[in-house]
């Protein structure tokens, strides 16, 4: 078990390095460098050289990358913001990330506790009107992006009915609409996946055996079908949490939620690279770690995965 977990963690390291390199390179692709952005077009040569030195941009790109990664790994230093009076990016992350995390986690909980039961019920009542209704609803929800659901909810629930606040992030009431806007699509995806997985399991011979030896239907489903059908669903939980984190870029913009998504989109218009780079890297790392967690959990729950690995 321990070797399995260690192996997974070691395998994730090259991916983390490659992803950080990718983010770093993309940020360097920008047509105008950070120094020109800070100083404007009329900058003198001396000023450019001074700032280049200050930000370490006069060093070779490999050294710049290593410095950046070392800064993050050793003291959580993501560089400084250009536009916010040199405020450290790590400080902005500390401020904004809890908000995004809260939003993503509550959307995840919503998606899980609505999507999974609906998927299970739809599979158990396969081809019934309930199943058809759910699946039509699922395709509809998968097709409707958060920036359609969000504004429509704002117009009808917040503005017309005045049941909930329009935008902001002050009390729990403010979190309801963003959570629904963010989580509904994931709920639909989870429901669809859960349904097809359970339908697959219900066709298996061991389910027929369980029923044939006289187990009640409820007991068969609870003891044999559900556990096995949940395994494939586990694999998409990591991806789906990552989707929620990036989805929060859109939802935070709609509802003006002060999280890392809102901050990143604002920083893009100000061309504040260290902020964009830091936030993107943070989300990518969390995405990889979430998938790693799911991977390990999968091995812990399903001994077949571990033994396959051992061979």
């Amino acid at each position, binding site marked *: 078990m321990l070797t399995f977990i260690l192996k997974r963690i070691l395998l994730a390291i090259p991916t983390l390095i490659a992803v950080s390199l990718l983010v770093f390179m993309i940020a360097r692709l920008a047509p105008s460098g950070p120094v020109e952005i800070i100083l404007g077009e009329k900058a003198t040569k001396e000023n450019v050289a001074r700032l280049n030195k200050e930000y370490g941009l006069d060093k070779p790109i490999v050294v710049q990358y290593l410095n950046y990664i070392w800064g993050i790994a050793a003291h959580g230093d993501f560089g400084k913001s250009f536009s916010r009076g040199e405020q450290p990016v790590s400080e902005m992350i500390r401020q904004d990330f809890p908000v995004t995390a809260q939003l993503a986690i509550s959307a995840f909980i919503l998606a899980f506790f609505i999507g999974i039961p609906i998927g299970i019920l739809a599979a158990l009542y396969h081809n019934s009107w309930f199943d058809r209704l759910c699946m039509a609803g699922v395709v509809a929800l998968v097709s409707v992006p958060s920036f359609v659901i969000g504004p429509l909810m704002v117009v009808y629930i917040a503005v017309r009915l005045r049941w909930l606040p329009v935008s902001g992030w002050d009390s729990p009431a403010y979190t309801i609409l963003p959570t629904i806007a963010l989580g509904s699509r994931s709920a639909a995806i989870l429901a669809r996946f859960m349904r097809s997985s359970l339908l697959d399991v219900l066709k298996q011979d061991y389910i027929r055996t369980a029923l044939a030896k006289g187990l009640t239907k409820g007991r068969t489903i609870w003891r044999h079908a559900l556990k096995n059908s949940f395994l494939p669903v586990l694999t998409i939980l990591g991806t789906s949490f990552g989707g929620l984190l990036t989805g929060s870029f859109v939802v935070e913009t709609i509802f003006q939620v002060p999280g890392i998504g809102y901050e990143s989109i604002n920083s893009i218009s100000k061309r504040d690279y260290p902020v964009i780079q830091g936030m993107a890297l943070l989300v*990518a790392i969390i*995405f990889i770690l979430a998938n790693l967690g799911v991977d390990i959990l999968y091995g812990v729950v399903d001994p077949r995965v571990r033994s396959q690995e051992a061979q």
Partner: protein
Amino acid sequence: MGLHTGQLDAVPPKFEEPAISQPSTSPGRDAIIRLRKNPVAMICLIYILSLILIAIFAPLLTHYDYDYQDSSRYASLPAPPDHFHRLGTDNLGQDVLSRLIYGARVSLGVSVVVVIIEVFIGVTLGLIAGFRSGMTDLVLMRVTDVMFAFPDLLLAILLAAVIRSGSQALPPVTSILTLFVALGIVGWPGMTRLVRGQALALREKEYIEAARATGVREKNILFRHLLPNLLSPIIVQVTQDLAGYILAESTLSFLGLGVQPPFPSWGQMISNALEYKDSQPQLIFFPSLLLALTVMAFNFFGDALRDALDPRMRK
């Protein structure tokens, strides 16, 4: 007994002539017949085809250009529908109906171009990786692993943000080119993996071995024997990816990173309308409806197509 049609299909009798129970048709024809029996798929197809026609003939269907500003009637505020502008005008005095119609052009145009990029890169690399194996395969798969380790919307946001970040203001057309590049880079790994997996499985089939044994050149094996058998999974993937790219384009445009004015995009129209949600909610409603219906049509049609092309899904 386990006499399920699916299992019979999966294990054909090895040394006997397969029993012919119905007049033989090509698999493609078979799929079309199955598809035509599905009313939902047909409705979606009609919707998609009409949208394509509307996008192509947009200038004939609209009274106003997408960037015509009716400034004599409206000053910097959206106006409700009236006799001249049947869906009203936006805050720049532009006709909403015209912009919705031209928006279809942008949405479909961008997603079709990106899908072509995806198919071109994805199929080529997938075939090479699956057929050659070895070092090429290993390197390509590691690259797709890294791309998959990245949430795709985040990568698209990052790319779009960086490409359009020059200090000079760029002409609006480049905003559409930016989308091609950003979404094209994000899109290909999925297709590469799909094609590689299929090619790996097909490579071991007898007919490929036979082709190789009779001295058919590798290029011909790839394009005349392997590729035609890969078509149905590719077609299904393309239909579903079209929906994905329409969503991605409108998401980026909503965030201000996609299509720039004066060009219209549904996502951008929704984003502009947010400011007037109290007084003119119809400005949010119409682009939202079109976007949702379009993505839904592609999703439903993609599902139906997959069922029709895969005979094992038959009940």
